[in-house]
């Protein structure tokens, strides 16, 4: 086992997870879990930053840590591939991870499962770093499953809430469907290339597909990516995953885990290029999901669910970008999206926390006076999400939309042009629903209805002696929303800075482009000599964003009654959107109910038929015993009689048997 700096990146979080787990043991140790977790994510970030030359060299470096599976010709080791794509992903994972962890120290303060939370988060970071740094598909799958496990643990963190438990199970099971595809993809890769090492596979990939596996591998891997990144039809788990605590939603379901699917496709881009249908499928699914999720987000009332659907929509954008061979666009959008989506989730968490668990959009209004900082920070995030000029989202989204329309126009492909137009419409919708939320929550007359939740408050009253004065969230019962502590606001400021500047920094000196094109996600630009719409798109997307903001301002700030009128006129549409196009109900009726019925049938058969047989078998000894009981006379003479009979029988047998 060679000791190299990149190994610290992966294994420090593991150590952190173990230490946090140990902190669960004692009440007084619990408070140490937060700082331990933060450190175990911060240090890898620092290490990555310091060692960035390892990542950005000419050829991808491979660091072999230790032998893992050697089964005949099948070799899967713990070895890590360090290339610029990995660097970008690690920056996202560890950077956003640190900030969210700091926020969570304040958000989760006083909770009984404090140490358990941070142990799970550290374990998640371990799995995620393994995922993004893995050199072979099996190690990647390990990370993949690990993040799925941690997602389950963290969604079901409030394990006494049945809805949280259900959501955790749903997430895990729907992910499983995708993971099946991924596993089959790995099997096919091994069959075709006789190795699962990414570096070796990518070296041996020919320019064209030579066998049937080459056509199917991308589709199987795509299925896995769609499961993990919540694209249609495997998107149903992400909105329900909002049952978990807000830092979890920010970290896992916005910035890192759900982007694993995008990363997978980007990493194995040469494999996807082999089949002519794979990437178009990715683009179509991504684009349609983006539109589909944006429409649903328009009619939701739960603020976290709005952001969940927004995440699905933005992931759709990333897939669309990769699908049209703009991997730079996809990864850039991943990068910027991490910043502003995390910011949005965390500010939404602050709002929910301040409103004592109230999530309903209709029950809060005009909170800007009570929570000015949160209001400002969320505004910055909303601008970035909508793609306001010069914010982070602007550059990345613009790159994707431009690439889509370019591709369509240059190849005279109506479908891709249509996809691009859908993308533009989705951008408008994005601005609409984002600012709908912001205007409703923070603007307008100040009236609100507090929630019934006292997470953290009760615990603090019980453990006042323990309270170290860290996140002095609330000590006495307050029935009004108020600003959150600096512990929680600090990271938000950093994220807001990122939301504003990340885009500009990313395209300055073509940094992102340089990063991506020196990694395995590099794709030759097929439109060297076509139309370049980049500049035009800048204006078009700015216009769309501003138009969306204005429309939202009208309906949700200035004339809210107009919104009600519109809702009534399009009541059917609104109902369909409210029910999320009935996808959940469809799954329930077609899959969940039949399975449950089958399960109950099996249970009934087991209990009645098999149980009956077992009971019958059990009755036999009893019956035998009872029937023989009567021959036990329990008197001496009875036994004597038996003995005499026995002697007679023996004599008879002796005489009969010649």
């Amino acid at each position, binding site marked *: 086992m060679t000791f190299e700096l990149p190994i610290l990146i992966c294994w420090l979080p593991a150590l952190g997870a173990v230490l946090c787990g140990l902190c669960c043991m004692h009440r007084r140790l619990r408070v140490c879990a937060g700082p331990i977790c933060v450190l175990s994510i911060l240090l890898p970030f620092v290490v990555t930053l310091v060692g960035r030359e390892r990542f950005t060299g000419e050829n991808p470096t491979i660091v072999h840590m230790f032998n893992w599976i050697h089964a005949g010709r099948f070799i899967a080791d713990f070895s890590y591939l360090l290339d610029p794509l990995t660097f970008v992903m690690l920056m996202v994972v560890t950077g956003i991870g640190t900030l969210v962890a700091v926020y969570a120290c304040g958000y989760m303060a006083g909770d009984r499962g404090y140490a358990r939370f941070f142990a799970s988060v550290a374990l998640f970071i371990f799995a995620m770093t393994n995922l993004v740094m893995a050199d072979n598909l099996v190690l990647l799958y390990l990370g993949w499953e690990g993040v799925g496990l941690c997602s389950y643990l963290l969604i079901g963190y409030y394990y006494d809430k049945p809805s949280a438990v259900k959501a955790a199970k749903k997430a895990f099971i729907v992910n499983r469907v995708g993971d099946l595809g991924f596993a089959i993809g790995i099997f096919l890769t091994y069959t075709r290339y006789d190795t699962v090492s990414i570096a070796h596979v990518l070296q041996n990939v020919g320019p064209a597909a030579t066998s049937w596996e080459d056509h199917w591998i991308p589709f199987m891997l795509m299925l896995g990516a769609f499961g993990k990144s919540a694209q249609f039809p495997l998107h149903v788990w992400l909105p329900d995953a909002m049952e978990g605590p807000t830092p979890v939603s920010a970290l896992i379901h916005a910035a890192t885990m759900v982007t694993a699917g995008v990363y997978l496709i980007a990493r194995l881009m040469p494999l996807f290029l082999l089949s002519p249908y794979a990437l178009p499928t990715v683009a179509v699914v991504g684009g349609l999901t983006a539109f589909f999720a944006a429409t649903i987000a328009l009619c939701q009332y739960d603020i976290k669910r709005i952001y969940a659907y927004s995440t699905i929509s933005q992931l759709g954008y990333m897939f669309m970008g990769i699908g049209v061979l703009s991997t730079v666009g996809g990864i850039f959008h991943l990068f910027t999206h991490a910043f502003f989506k995390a910011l949005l989730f965390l500010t939404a968490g602050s709002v929910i926390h301040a409103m004592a668990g109230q999530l309903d959009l209709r029950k809060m209004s005009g909170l800007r006076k009570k929570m000015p900082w949160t209001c400002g920070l969320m505004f910055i995030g909303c601008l970035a999400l909508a793609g306001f000029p010069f914010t982070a989202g602007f550059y990345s989204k613009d790159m994707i939309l431009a690439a889509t329309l370019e591709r369509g126009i240059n190849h005279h492909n109506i479908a891709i042009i249509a996809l691009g137009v859908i993308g533009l419409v989705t951008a408008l919708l994005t601005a609409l629903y984002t600012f709908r939320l912001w205007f409703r929550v923070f603007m307008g007359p100040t009236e609100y209805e507090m929630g019934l939740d006292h997470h953290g408050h009760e615990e603090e009253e019980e453990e006042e002696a323990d309270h170290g004065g860290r996140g002095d969230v609330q000590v006495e019962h307050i029935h009004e929303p108020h600003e959150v502590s600096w512990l929680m606001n600090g990271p938000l400021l950093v994220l807001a800075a990122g939301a504003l500047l990340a885009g500009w920094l990313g395209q300055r000196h073509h940094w992102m482009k340089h990063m991506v094109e020196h990694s395995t996600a590099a794709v030759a630009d097929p439109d060297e000599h076509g139309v370049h719409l980049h500049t035009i798109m800048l204006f078009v997307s700015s216009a769309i964003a501003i138009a969306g903001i204005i429309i939202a301002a009208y309906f949700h700030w200035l004339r809210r009654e107009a919104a009600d009128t519109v809702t009534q006129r399009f009541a059917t549409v609104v109902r369909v959107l409210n029910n999320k196009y009935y996808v959940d109900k469809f799954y329930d009726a077609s899959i969940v109910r039949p399975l449950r019925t089958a399960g109950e049938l099996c249970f009934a058969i087991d209990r009645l038929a098999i149980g009956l047989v077992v009971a019958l078998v059990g009755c036999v000894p009893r019956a035998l015993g009872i029937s023989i009981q009567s021959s036990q006379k329990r008197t001496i003479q009875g036994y004597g009689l038996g003995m*005499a009979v026995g002697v*007679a029988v023996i004599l008879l047998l002796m*005489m009969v048997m010649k």
Partner: protein
Amino acid sequence: MPYVLYIASTLGAVALFMMMPRHGYSPRKLGALLGAVTLGGLWLFLAQHYLEPASDRGITAPAVVYHYIFSGLAIVAAVRVITHDKPVYAALWFVMIVLASAGLLLVLSAEFMAVAMVIIYGGAILVTYVFVIMLASQPGDTAAPDDAPAYDRVSREPAAAVVVGFVLLALLLSAMFATGDSTDSPWLTPNVMAQAPSDELIIEKVLTNRAAQRALDRIGGQGEATVSQTFARTDQLDNTERVGLDLFEGHPLGLELAGVILLMSLVGAVVIARTRVEASQPQEKS
């Protein structure tokens, strides 16, 4: 042939069953008659159809008569033991069995055994039994205190006992009287129909016995002992001496062990009889 045995067993079973003590009326006299007839008939049948004609080698005629007398007496007495109400009478009838059995042993030229039986059984064991019966006797119920108590007057499951017993008897008899047709079974008694060997034959066989060899050394035979001399000597050995020789020469260890066993039983009987036991009287508990 075996059918006669089975018929005789069945009739005997019926007879005995009739003689068993019961609640109500039991046809004892009838049963007795039937039993006697059965036994007599069986003997006659055996004598007629089964036995070899008389020869001069064999037990002399008076012994045959004595055999029948003593056998009949023993069987009658045995039946009375098991069907009599009162325990003391049963014990006395048992004494009769002992005497009859002693007579049979005399017929078999085993006079030592006969006398030993009378002494040990009649003199020791049965006296003990009678003592204990006296000690532990109970009056009958208050209505008729002179009668035996209920557990003596009514037998327990007579039918089952009689059936099982006579089935066993039938099996034993058919084993004893089996013909020698099938010779490959080791369980069939080889030639029980053999008549009693003569005394000379016995003497000859005894001479080949190891114990007898040593006896020979002891009682004489220095130098060359001719067969006739030993012959002349050993035909004067009587049953006691022969048994004694066999016992002390052939089974000395057994003898010692028997003594130890008697000692053990003596000690055991003393210990048991000394134990004070509180009589359980549940009606007196509060």
